[in-house]
């Protein structure tokens, strides 16, 4: 398959909502500020990750509640999740929450769904399925969610979910590390979310994208919606690579411990530079970042959405917004992106 690396992409950002030791009210207020700044900078979308029962990193368990507040403060920024942990949601309640949000925000939602690999620790508290069964469980719940959004009769009853949000069913996304499941997402007409930090772009992410696109071309008829791939990467612009690496070291120490807890103990012994490479971070001067992104084997040409992560474990909201500015004003334009609207001033102005 030939890849057209000049394919246009939409620019979003993804945040995991960190803020250890800070009051939740402050963390959420800052998060709303970041969304507003991103809209002012011309970003196409802002995406949040859902995490449960975390007190330090990953502090947002309720994306639709937060995004409803964001929706009132923005007008056209797309609002998404990457991801919502589907096995810990009742699919009908999830459909209701997102349908109400869609009615409030307008048709600008992107609902990314995952099986909960990063939230396995929370399954016991929720009385959820055994983690090993979560893929089958995910498929069951996704079926109910899709029917509810489409306004189909629910179960044996004649009831349908209210309000209906049939268009939102065309803006579902799945995150997976299994090529077979990437193919299933294509057959369902869903988007594919890629970019889990420990997945190697060449040997893991690229095969997932290729499987998804191959299956889409086999199973979807001409005239149906186009395949959608959203790709996440940490992006940390700084004066140069050395300065960026030094800035990131305190956050990386925390980050490594988090992965080590999930079994990736080999990460503990890597040098800073090797670790940054291992988790696919693009960092350094604008030219460094642009070059590094262009060399990424599973990014340009695949991405319909490029979702940089600019927040690290100990960064401030001002630093996060500064990085978004550099991405919107310098890095993304060098990659062929142009702002769709609302651009023309710095968020800090």
């Amino acid at each position, binding site marked *: 398959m030939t890849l057209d690396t000049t394919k246009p992409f939409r620019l979003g950002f993804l945040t995991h909502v960190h803020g250890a030791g800070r*009051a*939740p*009210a402050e*963390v*959420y*207020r800052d998060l*709303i500020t970041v969304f507003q700044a991103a809209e002012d900078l011309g970003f196409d979308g802002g995406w949040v990750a859902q995490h*449960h*029962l*975390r*007190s330090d990193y990953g*502090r*947002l*368990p*309720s994306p*639709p*509640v*937060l995004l*409803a*507040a*964001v*929706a*009132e*403060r923005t007008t056209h920024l797309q609002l998404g999740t990457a991801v919502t942990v589907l096995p*810990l*949601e*009742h699919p*009908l*309640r999830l459909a*209701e*929450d997102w*349908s*109400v*949000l869609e*009615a*409030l925000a*307008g048709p600008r939602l992107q609902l990314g769904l995952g099986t909960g690999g990063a939230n396995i*620790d*929370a399954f*016991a*508290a*929720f009385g959820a399925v055994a983690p090993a069964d979560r893929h089958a469980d995910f498929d069951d719940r996704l079926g109910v969610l899709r029917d509810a959004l489409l306004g189909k009769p*629910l*179960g*044996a*009853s004649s*009831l*349908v*979910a*209210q*309000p209906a949000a049939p268009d939102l069913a065309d803006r579902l996304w799945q995150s997976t590390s299994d090529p077979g499941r990437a193919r299933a997402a294509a057959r369902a007409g869903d988007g594919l979310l890629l970019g889990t930090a420990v997945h190697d772009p060449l040997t893991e992410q690229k095969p997932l994208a290729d499987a998804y696109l191959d299956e889409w071309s086999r199973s979807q008829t001409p005239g149906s919606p186009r395949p959608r791939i959203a790709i996440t990467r940490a992006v940390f612009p700084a004066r140069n690579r050395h300065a960026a690496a030094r800035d990131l070291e305190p956050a990386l120490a925390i980050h490594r411990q988090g992965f080590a807890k999930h079994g990736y103990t080999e990460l503990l012994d890597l040098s800073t530079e090797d670790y940054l490479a291992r988790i696919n971070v693009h960092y350094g001067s604008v030219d460094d970042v642009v070059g590094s992104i262009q060399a990424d084997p599973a990014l340009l040409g695949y991405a319909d959405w490029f979702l940089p992560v600019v927040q690290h474990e100990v960064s401030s909201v001002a630093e996060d917004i500064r990085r978004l500015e550099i991405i919107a004003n310098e890095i993304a334009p060098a990659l062929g992106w142009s702002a769709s609207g609302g651009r023309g001033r710095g968020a800090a102005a």
Partner: protein
Amino acid sequence: MTESPRRPFTLGFLTHVHGDVPSPHLYQDVVELFVAAEELGFDSGWVAQHHFQPRFGRLPSPLVLLAAAASRTRRIRLGVGVVVLGLEDPIRLAEDAAVLDALSGGRLDLGVGTGGANVSAFGTFGRDVAKRRELAADVLDRLRGALAGQPLDEFGTTLQPPAPTLGSRLWDSTTQLDGVRRAAREGRGLLLGVGHARSVQLPLAEAYLAEWRGDPADAPIAAVRGVFPDRDLESARAELASDIALYDPLFAADGHDPASLTLERKLDLMNVRHGPVDHIVQTLASDAVFSGAATHLIAACHAESSTIARGLERLDVVATEIAPALGWTPAHDLAAVS
């Protein structure tokens, strides 16, 4: 109780989110209703949760809508009256409530109920409607535990974000004597909307107060009342007649013969205060619950056929004429005054 001026009370409004307009329009109107009510000085606004209802009761996700309202207001308290416990996961509910409470600066009041108005939804959720009281009790226990910061699993995991004060801002809506006693023992407020004020709600309020630990003057009791001001009784009743007719099955279920009940009698059984302002003031002043134990008056000004705008006209009369005549003074947002 005599005609002496009653003690201060808190004024709220409640809407069940009725209407025939498309949902984007309806929900945005409800958000604007909170903005307008805050400007009128209302202390709180409450929305009800209903599932799978295409016309009456169109809001299945009150916490999502209240997050939008929180974003547009600064002072007014944000109430759910009520969430159907048996159809919620207690931890997800606690998470959503805690995030909204943090977003809104601690303005959430969370009413809970067993879902009497939502019995048709249980089967679709895979829940046994016959067990809805047991289900609700179980979800409530686990919700309270989560809010109190109790461990949620064997590893000692606790709710995030923490919401340690939200447990004291839960409200029960129940017509069961053991239910109101439990609410009092556990420190929850009491929402009294269903059932005739004197014959049903007064005994519930008395049972609640008898069990309340602490100063009875602090026991939070909200009288939820239909309030429909109009130039005269006849006009008010004419406008309400078709909406009240929708309740005939409920009257029948309650042992009445709807055909033998006059509209006036039905309105009284439903505690709908209506007509000229003076008349409404007088009927509220003699309301068995509002005139006595209630600390809160929650005005429901939206009937099934009311537009949000029509209900807002009524809320304006409540805030500017009716409530002041009963001793209420509007709250003001200091920042807005300056």
